[in-house]
């Protein structure tokens, strides 16, 4: 089996594993991680298409490579935005913010 095919199969399994994690985890941070695994699997599929398209003067087709580079940077931006949303959400719903909040929560729990 060639390196490219093996890497492609790895990419396919990674996409499946990432998808699984994305569905089963209730925790958003774990979903972000799983989403990144899924994404890197898809990038690898692009990678084997690039490698298979090697031609004279190019060890791999540059067009899929350029797409993956763009993809990695955009995936990072999306991850950062998702993490920022997550942290803001945590700050919003954190039960221990101030003493007043604590008392408020306790009162609600009593009701």
């Amino acid at each position, binding site marked *: 089996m060639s390196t490219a095919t093996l890497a492609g199969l790895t990419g396919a399994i990674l996409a499946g594993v990432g998808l699984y994690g994305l569905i*089963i985890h209730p*925790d958003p*941070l774990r979903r972000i991680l799983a989403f990144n695994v899924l994404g890197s699997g898809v990038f690898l599929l692009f990678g084997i298409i690039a*490698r298979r398209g090697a031609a004279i003067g*190019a060890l791999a*087709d540059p*067009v899929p490579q350029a797409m993956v580079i763009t993809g990695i940077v955009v995936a*990072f931006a999306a991850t950062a935005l998702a993490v*920022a949303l*997550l942290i803001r959400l945590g700050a919003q719903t954190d039960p221990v913010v101030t003493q007043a909040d604590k008392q408020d929560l306790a009162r609600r729990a009593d009701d």
Partner: protein
Amino acid sequence: MIVQTLDIGLAALVLTLAGYTVLARATFPAVVSYVAYGLLLSLIWVRLFSVDVALTEAAIGGGLTGVLLIGAAGKRRGTAVAATELDPTQPLRWAIMALCALAALALATVVVSLPDPAPTLAPQAMENIATTGLGNPVTAVLIAYRAFDTMLEKCVLVIAVVGVWSLACDRCWGGAPDVPRAVARGGTLTFFAQVLPPLGILIGIRIFWIGADEPGGAFQGGAILAAMWVIIMMAGLTDVPAISKRWLRIALAAGPIVFLGVGILGFAAAGGFLAYPHGFAKPVIIFVEIFMTLSIAATLPMLVGGAPIRAPRP
């Protein structure tokens, strides 16, 4: 034979780490596993002879994503509520697993049955590369053939920063974000953050500069420069700038604006949006890339920093 052993070992290791990233019980081990996973991925990219991608993965996947995610895991330590009632039941888990396996199988089938000989744009890319004056076909695709994509991607980065900043609480607007910072100054980390950046900046600029002819380019160089800024901030040697700072906003927007400006000038100079004047393409490309590198070096740390959490100083 040995090459195959290497490839299979690499694939097995990557799959184990990915599996653990997804299946680990606690969050932090999953994040560490993901960081190691990103590192091994760049090895696979080298095996695929995609050195440009390997560089990007090394700089972004290994370094900055690690800081971002570990920082996030740290900030959420203790606040994460055990949401066991939201966990899917066991039969449902099996069903999900079966469906995901099916999806993977479908992709694997595609991989095995790809057409042979493979369709490729490499000959066209190599044929026209002389007109751009570049030697690295990947850079040619990014900045010349598909320049429109790259320009939009720069815009996406700026929009992502705007999105992250807009999550600030009302009081913090205009204030400074934070990275996982050392509590005390002085000591090992300070030394590290004083020694590493001079070397790192040199390497970052080199990788940007050789990108015209060899693997490298604005993304990879910019990402390394960004990482150097992040380490200085993590050591507490400089403060994270307040988001209302004008120089910061200019640095963030410079890349897309210059790119757009050059694109519009293309109408006058070469008769089309983002067309480069004939025989003068390379200097224009380098000019655009310089601003792109600067913008990336400013954008990525701001993405790592997240929303401002401190109110602006009066």
